[in-house]
C-alpha cells in the first residue's frame, strides 16, 4: 500500500500512465502499432512516427523548459518557427542554384541566425528592459506571423530541394533525420545543464532573480542565452516543419505549437513559477501529446477533434496530480459533519500557497 501511494505521488506517474493508456488503446485498435519494421533500410512503425512527428515539438518544448525554469514563458516560438521556415524556403526558392549545398547551408544559416536574433530580442526585453515575459514575447507572437507573411509575400512558398527535404522527412543511417537532430539537441541540453553549473544557474534565476544576482549569477546573460536558445530551437523546428511539407506556410506553420510546448513542459512536472526543471519530464510530456494526436487518428476519429482529447487528458492529469484536489477528495470521504466547511476553508486557504504541506495542515484545522 505504501509503495503504491509512493508511486502515485511521483510527479511523472500520471503523465506516464496516460502515455501507457494511449499506447494500449492504440495496440488494441491496431495490434501492429508498436512493431518497428525496416523497409529499404529505413525504420518505420508507430513509435518511429511518434518520434519523428514529435521532433519539432520536442525542440520547441526544450527551449520552453529552460525559459520556464527562469520563471519566464516564450509565446513567440510559433511565430519564430514560421519566420524561420519562411526565410529558408525563400532563400532556396529565389536562389539560382536551389540544389547546391551552398544554397542549403545559406538557407539554414540565415534561418537559424534570424531565429537567434529574435530570441535575443525577447531576451533583451525580459532581461534588460525588465518587461514581463508573457507580454514581451506576446509582441513577437502578434507581429511574427505578419513578418513571415512579409518574407513570403503572402504566398505559400513551395520549393524542390531533395537535400532540404532530408531535414524533416529524410533518413540518416535508417533513422529519421529529424529524430537524430532533436535527439542530439536534447543530449546537448541535458549535458549542458546537468553536467555543468549552467542548469543550476538557470534554476537559481528562476527561484529568485534578485538573490541570484546578489550571489554573483549573471542573470542577464543567462536570460539572454535561454531566450536565444528557445529562438534557435524554434527556428530549427521551423526548418523541420517546412522541409516536411516542402513549403513555408506563414499562417499555419507551427500554429498553437507554443501552447502544446507549454503544456508538454507543465505535464512534465516543471512549474510555471520557475525553478527546478525536468528535461525527462518534458520529453515525456511531448510523447504524451504526440501519441495523443496519433492515437486520435488511429482510433478513426477526425484529427480535427484532437484538441478535445488533449483537453480531457490535460484536465485528468492535472486533477489527479493536484495535491489540493486529492486532499479535498480525502476530506469529502470523512463523516458529513465538517465536510462542507472543511472543503471551502481548505480551498480558500490553499490557492495562494499551493504547496503540498500546507494542505493537510489546513484540512486538520478545518476539521
Amino acid at each position: 500500500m505504501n509503495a503504491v501511494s509512493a508511486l502515485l505521488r511521483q510527479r511523472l506517474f500520471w503523465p506516464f500512465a496516460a502515455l501507457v493508456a494511449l499506447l494500449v488503446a492504440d495496440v488494441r485498435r491496431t495490434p501492429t502499432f508498436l512493431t518497428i519494421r525496416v523497409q529499404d533500410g529505413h525504420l518505420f512503425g508507430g513509435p518511429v512516427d511518434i518520434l519523428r512527428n514529435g521532433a519539432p515539438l520536442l525542440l520547441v518544448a526544450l527551449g520552453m523548459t529552460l525559459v520556464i525554469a527562469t520563471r519566464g514563458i516564450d509565446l513567440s516560438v510559433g511565430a519564430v518557427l514560421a519566420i524561420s521556415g519562411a526565410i529558408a524556403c525563400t532563400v532556396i526558392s529565389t536562389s539560382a542554384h536551389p540544389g547546391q549545398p551552398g544554397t542549403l547551408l545559406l538557407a539554414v544559416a540565415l534561418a537559424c541566425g534570424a531565429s537567434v536574433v529574435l530570441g535575443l530580442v525577447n531576451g533583451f526585453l525580459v532581461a534588460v528592459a525588465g518587461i514581463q515575459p508573457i507580454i514581451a514575447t506576446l509582441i513577437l507572437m502578434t507581429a511574427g506571423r505578419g513578418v513571415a507573411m512579409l518574407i513570403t509575400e503572402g504566398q505559400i512558398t513551395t520549393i524542390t530541394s531533395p537535400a532540404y527535404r532530408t531535414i524533416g522527412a529524410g533518413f540518416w543511417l535508417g533513422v529519421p533525420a529529424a529524430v537524430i537532430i532533436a535527439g542530439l539537441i536534447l543530449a546537448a541540453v541535458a549535458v549542458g545543464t546537468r553536467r555543468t553549473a549552467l542548469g543550476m544557474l538557470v534554476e537559481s534565476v528562476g527561484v529568485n532573480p534578485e538573490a541570484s544576482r546578489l550571489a554573483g549569477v549573471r542573470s542577464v546573460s543567462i536570460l539572454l542565452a535561454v531566450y536565444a536558445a528557445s529562438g534557435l530551437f524554434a527556428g530549427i523546428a521551423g526548418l523541420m516543419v517546412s522541409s516536411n511539407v516542402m513549403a513555408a506556410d506563414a499562417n499555419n506553420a507551427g500554429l498553437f505549437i507554443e501552447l502544446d510546448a507549454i503544456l508538454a513542459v507543465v505535464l512534465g512536472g516543471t512549474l510555471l513559477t520557475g525553478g527546478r526543471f525536468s528535461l525527462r519530464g518534458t520529453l515525456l510530456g511531448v510523447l504524451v501529446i504526440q501519441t495523443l494526436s496519433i492515437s486520435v487518428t488511429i482510433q478513426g476519429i477526425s484529427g480535427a477533434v484532437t484538441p478535445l482529447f488533449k483537453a480531457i487528458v490535460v484536465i485528468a492529469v492535472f486533477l489527479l496530480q493536484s495535491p489540493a484536489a486529492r486532499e479535498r477528495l480525502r476530506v469529502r470521504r470523512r463523516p458529513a459533519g465538517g465536510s462542507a466547511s472543511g472543503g471551502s476553508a481548505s480551498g480558500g486557504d490553499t490557492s495562494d500557497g499551493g504547496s503540498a504541506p500546507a494542505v493537510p495542515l489546513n484540512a486538520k484545522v478545518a476539521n
Partner: protein
Amino acid sequence: MPTEPLTSADAGPSAGEAPSADAAPGDRPRPGALLRLRALLHLDQQYLPVVGSVVVLVLMLVVGGTRYDNFLSPLVLSNLLIDNSYMVVLAVGMTFVILTGGIDLSVGAVVALSGVLGARMFESGYPAAVCLPVMVLVGALLGVLAGVMVLVVEVEPFIATLAVMFLARGLCYVIAPESVPIRADAITTLGTSRFGAGEWVITPSGIIALVILGSAFFLLHYTRFGRTVYAIGEDEGSARLMGLPVTVTKLGVYVLSGTCAGVAGLLFAISTRAGYSRNGIGMETTAIAAVVIGGTILTGGSGYVLGSLLGVLALGLIQTMITFEGTLSSWWTSIFIGTLLFLFVVLQRVIVLRRT
C-alpha cells in the same frame, strides 16, 4: 505642441504632487509630452497609461484624417465601433481577469464554440429564444470550468484556460467541422437593423457592446465585487487576510470572462451569419493586446474597462487605416499591432520604473 504655454503656467501645482526631482529642474528642457499632459490635467500617475491610449487614439485619428478623405466621417467612426463590437465585449471580460492577475486564453475558442453551437441549433429549428441564451450560457459554463480549475485544482490560469481552449475547439469540431450558415430571422434582423441620427449609426451589436461596457464599468467601480477584483490584483494574500471573498470573486471573474466570450460569439455570429469552428483563432491575443494597450497592467491591480475600449478602438483604427491605404497587404495589420503593443509595453515599463 499647442499645450506648451498652458504647461509652463500649470507647472507649479504639479511640482508639489509629483516627485519634485524630475518636475522642478527638468521642466524647461524636456519634461516629456505625457508628463506635461499630466501636469495639465492634474492627473494621478495611475491614469497615465490610459492617457497614453487616448493620445495614441487621437494621433491616429489626426493622421488618418489628414491622410485620407472621409476618414473622420461619422459613418467610418460608427463602423469602427460596430465592426469591433465583439472585441469590445471580449476585452471587457479579459480586463477583469487580467486585473486579478490572471489570464484567459480560452476566449477565441469560446467565440467559435458559441457560434457553431448556435448555428447548429438554429439549423435544427430551435427558436431564437432558446438559441441566443444557450450561446451565451455555453461561455459562462466554460468560464465556471476554468474558474474551478484555477481555484480547486490549483492549476495556473494560463494552463487552466488553455485546457478550456482545447476543450472548446475540440467541441467545435465535434459539433460541426464545416461552416454552418445561420439563416434564422432573428439573427438576420439583429444583423441588418440600423438605428441612428443623421450619419451616425449603431447596430444592435453595438448597443449590446456599449451596454456591457457600461455594466462592467459600474460593476468594477461601484460594487464590492469590483473593489475585491482590484484588491486581489494588488495583493491576493492581503485581500484574503482582510477577509475579502477572494475565492468567489476569482471564480466570478472567470465566469464573467466566459460569459463575455459567449456574448462575443453571439455578436460575431450576427456579423458573419455563420458558425465556423476555425473562427476566433488568435482572438485571445488581440483581446489581451487591446487590454494592454488600454493601459491595464498585466500583473494585475491597475487598469480600467474604458481603457480597454480605447485599446480595441486603436486596434480597429489600424485595420481601418490599412483598408483606407489600399495598397498595404493584410499582414501589415499584425505587424502594426505588434509595434503598438511594443510601444505601450515600453511606456508602461517606464511608468512602473518611475513609480518605484
